[in-house]
């Protein structure tokens, strides 16, 4: 019986010939990523043994630089833990820090054909790298770090084949909003992306789409490997062994769908829910906003900052609107600085924060007040997600968010891409 990519990767990591939906797969974890918040004193326990320190990474992202004593305490505990067990991959506040999934991408810690776990729901971001990456809970992380293993209840798989190529001004976020709006949640299912159009998507675009798989409530979200990916991994993580994994020709899917990328248009998700909530941009055009946010593990990539800079270049953010931009990692921040994007954003009136989960989780660096309205290019628009429960959060692509920041209301970015070659 043929296997999907998820099933093949889990079978390999579980040292078993076959994995099928309904199984509980017990697998070896190649990479276990701990966050600053993993070390919350309320949830953390004293670890007596680490299975393999080389397979653990510690990345600070949720509350950095520490805005509270509690956040600082987490970081102290994490540093002590890393030192005690000789964990070399400690991404502390400084040049190597960033949002965990973005650091994992920058460094290609998510290795094709392997299993990665992290106690953050957007961990399936690693699926852009043909990696079975999955958000788990705190206790799962303790299990993975101490035993080197994890368990997964295996779901069936939904396959998406891309054809064609996105039009200028249409982004991976719009692919996601199309899938979420048309097909809704994929509860207890895995998602596979491939097809002849897949290779037209940049690695960063794939990251956006894989990260947003969490919002489909998918388990694993996995892209097929291609030359672009394998070259990227070789460059970013030299010497690492990896196993690009393609699905079997006779793999069984719950459903198989084809999406013509060239047919897609920019969409916006209405407040309070991500899935089954997408509308055409024209339906909400003119909606006044107080804040425009671009960032998070989903949209803090260099591509996203480039698009934002392209839109706001030589223009000004509307009076009364706060435009906040959060690069995914400090390395991305430096790359954007060198490319001139940061200066353009600042000149336009945007605030550029250090890399953090910050505004996306309603933590800090851009929390919304009562009744405020935000358009965001980040991960979630749940009620109260970014601040006060009465605030409302629309979700769109970085281009849409940037254009809206200039206008002071939700606005199409189409004019900024006219004449671009697709």
């Amino acid at each position: 019986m043929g296997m999907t990519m998820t099933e093949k990767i889990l079978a390999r990591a579980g040292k078993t010939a076959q994995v099928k939906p309904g199984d509980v797969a017990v697998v070896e974890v190649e990479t276990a990523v701990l966050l600053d918040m993993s070390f919350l004193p309320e949830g953390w326990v004293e670890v007596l043994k680490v299975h393999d320190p080389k397979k653990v990474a510690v990345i600070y992202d949720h509350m950095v630089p520490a805005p509270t004593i509690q956040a600082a305490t987490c970081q102290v505990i994490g540093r002590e833990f890393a030192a005690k067990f000789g964990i070399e991959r400690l991404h502390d506040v400084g040049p190597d820090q960033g949002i965990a999934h973005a650091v994992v991408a920058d460094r290609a810690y998510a290795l094709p054909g392997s299993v990665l776990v992290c106690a953050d729901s957007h961990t399936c971001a690693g699926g852009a790298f043909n990696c079975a990456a999955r958000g788990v809970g705190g206790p799962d992380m303790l299990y993975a770090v101490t035993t080197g293993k994890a368990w997964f209840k295996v779901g069936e798989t939904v396959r998406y084949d891309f054809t064609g190529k996105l039009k200028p001004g249409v982004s991976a976020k719009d692919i996601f909003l199309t899938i979420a709006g048309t097909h809704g949640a994929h509860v207890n299912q895995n998602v596979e992306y491939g097809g002849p159009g897949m290779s037209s998507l940049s690695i960063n675009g794939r990251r956006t789409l894989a990260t947003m798989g969490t919002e489909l409530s998918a388990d694993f979200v996995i892209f097929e490997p291609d030359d672009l990916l394998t070259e990227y991994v070789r460059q970013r993580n030299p010497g690492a062994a990896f196993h690009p994994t393609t699905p079997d020709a006779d793999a069984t899917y719950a459903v198989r769908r084809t999406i013509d990328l060239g047919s897609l248009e920019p969409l916006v998700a209405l407040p309070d829910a991500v899935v089954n909530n997408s509308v055409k941009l024209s339906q909400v055009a003119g909606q006044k906003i107080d804040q425009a946010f671009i960032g998070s593990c989903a949209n803090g990539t260099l591509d996203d900052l480039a698009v934002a800079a392209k839109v706001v270049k030589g223009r000004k953010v509307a009076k009364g609107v706060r435009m906040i931009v959060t690069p995914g990692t400090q390395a991305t921040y430096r790359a954007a600085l060198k490319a001139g994007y940061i200066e353009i954003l600042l000149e336009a009136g945007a605030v550029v924060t250090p890399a953090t989960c910050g505004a996306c989780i309603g933590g800090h660096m851009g929390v919304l007040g009562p009744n405020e309205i935000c358009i965001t290019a980040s991960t979630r628009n749940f009620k109260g997600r970014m601040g006060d429960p009465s605030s409302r959060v629309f979700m769109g692509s970085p281009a849409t968010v940037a254009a809206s920041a200039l206008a002071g209301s939700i606005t199409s970015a189409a004019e900024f891409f006219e004449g671009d070659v697709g």
Partner: protein
Amino acid sequence: MTSDRRNEQPVLAKKVWKFGDNINTDLMLPGPYLYRSPEEQARAVFMNNRPGWVDAMKQGDAIIGGFNYGMGSSRPAARSLRMCGVGFLLAEALNGLFFRNSVNYGLLAFECPGVSKAFEEGDEAELSIERWEARNPRTGQTLAVTPVPDMLLSIMRGGGVLPLLEAQGLIRRHKA
């Protein structure tokens, strides 16, 4: 494991509380409470969508949920429900990550197709893990509960994964 369940009495919840589809983790554990103590988090359950619920519910009550119950983040919402005293939770479908946390924090949470139509708010509910069956005493209707593999059920019923790791000498807990 199966033998452990023989002759078990069904668990009775005196009252069920009904929630709809796509109840997300942020409703059970609101963002502003993410970094508070587990006790404070448990006081904040459903404060945005059902203020006062934590005071109205009683130990052992059941939650009946709809489709994709527990969607959202990896935050330990299941721990909050367990600490509130939720006896068990039955949903049309559970979000995978929420289910993981239910196993790992020892919350009895299962899938039970048809459950949202079979119960009204305020009904009693019986859950038999031995028979993998839920029953509404008011109507007499019984529904099949989707069985959970023994490995996961034993972690869930053993209070979660932490006692397991502690027994193996891999971690040390300074408080319960």
